[in-house]
């Protein structure tokens, strides 16, 4: 304790205080091997999505029918598909819809689930019963099947895939937030905030939310792997991103017909999905070691 204090810089402003905390967190992340590997994989996905036009060697939509189903070569690093499109370039561009789906799903489901769970945990009584039963109902649906049903009712496409996945993704955040809130509801610092005259809304958002965030971040990172798989599954079945958009699941779907004579068409996006899911899982596990206060003394 005293050792930590002596090496600690003294922050002089709010921003500096946050920066120091961030640095400490970053140092812990880098020291943890699984977080580092996971983080690098996820970072690669991010960079790929952002600078796709720069690193792609071909136009992902350009069809050169004479070059159909070419095996990997120096001209086409990962070969070409049945329409003569460059698979490497499609893979690079495919990072965009993948990342977009993940971000949109988390952006919808995490805040919604957190609020439902925190309100349930803080209010208690019939509000809690109502909200948590609702959560249970949504949690009971198998994710892929609900997504399939929804997308086929609405209309296949990226947006509807996002909506379908988000609807099944929020309950886990609600459960998590409720559990954390129940543990914190009568903590002295929450009582102290009440004793200052803070309203219930302010206490939930200002006192309880910050303490739920790290476990929600861990949950979200671990969830992302599942979201990617579900999105790819929808794409594979032709219910997610629509052709000619380069999306990994859809790419596997079209590669399926040529698995025996041109394995690279399905294998390349398959490996990409595997690596990215693995990356998110490793990062999530590592973040849990780093962030979760319950894992420290």
């Amino acid at each position, binding site marked *: *304790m*005293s*050792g930590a204090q002596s*090496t600690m810089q003294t922050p002089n402003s709010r921003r500096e205080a946050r920066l120091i905390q961030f640095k400490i967190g970053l140092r812990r992340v880098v020291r943890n091997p699984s977080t580092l590997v996971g983080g690098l994989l996820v970072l690669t996905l991010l960079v790929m999505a952002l600078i796709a036009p720069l690193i792609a060697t071909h136009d992902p939509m350009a069809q050169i029918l004479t070059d159909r189903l070419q095996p990997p070569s120096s001209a086409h690093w990962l070969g070409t598909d049945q329409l003569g499109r460059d698979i490497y370039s499609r893979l690079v561009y495919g990072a965009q819809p993948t990342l977009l789906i993940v971000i949109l799903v988390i952006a919808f489901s995490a805040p919604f689930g957190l609020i439902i769970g925190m309100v349930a945990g803080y209010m208690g009584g019939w509000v809690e019963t109502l909200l948590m039963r609702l959560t249970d109902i949504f949690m009971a649906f198998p994710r892929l099947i609900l997504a399939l049903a929804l997308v086929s009712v609405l209309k296949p496409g990226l947006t509807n895939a996002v909506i379908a996945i988000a609807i099944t993704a929020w309950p886990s955040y609600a459960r998590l937030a409720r559990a954390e809130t129940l543990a914190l509801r009568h903590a002295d610092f929450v009582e102290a905030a009440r004793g200052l005259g803070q309203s219930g809304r302010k206490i939930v958002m200002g006192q309880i939310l910050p303490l739920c965030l790290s476990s929600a971040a861990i949950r979200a990172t671990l969830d992302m792997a599942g979201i990617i798989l579900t999105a790819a599954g929808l794409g594979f079945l032709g219910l997610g991103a629509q052709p000619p958009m380069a999306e990994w699941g859809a790419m596997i779907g079209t590669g399926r017909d040529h698995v025996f004579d041109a394995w690279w068409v399905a294998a390349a996006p398959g490996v990409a999905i595997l690596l990215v899911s693995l990356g998110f899982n490793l990062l999530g596990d590592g973040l849990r070691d780093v962030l979760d206060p319950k894992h420290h*003394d």
Partner: protein
Amino acid sequence: MTEAPLLSIDGLTVSFPGEDGPVAVVRDFKLEIGREKVGIVGESGSGKSMTARAILGLIPKPGVVMANSMRLHGQDMLSLDKTGWRRLRGKRIGMILQDPKFSLNPVMRIGDQITETLQLHEKISRAEQRERALEILAAVGIDDPQRVYAAYPHELSGGMGQRAMIAAMLVSSPDLIIADEPTSALDVLVREQVLKLLDDLVTRRGIGLILISHDLPMVARFCDRILVMYRGRVVESLDARHLDRATHPYTRGLIACLPSPALRGQVLPSLSRDPAWEVA
């Protein structure tokens, strides 16, 4: 004391890895204890609890324990492996911790926890086990042993829980009890009852006791001698009846800063720490 010491420790050092090499939290601790009550007093960070943990073989992982010698009844403790330590803690050394909730098994009835230990030590029938357990519960001053026998730890008040823990520990009739802040979660009335109980047991059964606390007056009333620890080091060893003969400025400062009728409503002297106290 003429007989051989129960526990003798020399040069005990406990350290943890820090950013710039190992940090010693206990330095060069030395103690010989017979069938007597020894208090270890110090403030948070003084290393008193780490000393207790080291004697129990309970220093958590990156921590390193070193000593010139550590002997219980002449048996070398430094060469013990995990099983050896566990046997030692179960049979020879009893421990009482601040919060009974952490040391009793929360999903087991009190009675079962006591009979479980009984089974380890003696081969007696179920009925006899129950009989013995009830006796022990009564012996630690529990008025309705039947109820406590069937209760789970969370159903007991702080004082009751502490008594139940003492009972569970007494079953194996240890030679030495280490009590780390056994009463600081209790209110004054219950505190005195628990202390009285411990005192009776120790005197009657001839058990050695190490009482660890931050409460100097309480330890002084209860123990025979006192070791005062500061930053991992014993700075003074005192006869408990003569607190007023304390010579170390830290001990004197600890005594002086307590509220007393003479200082009522006045500014209490604050303890100014001298870096020189940290070096022997």
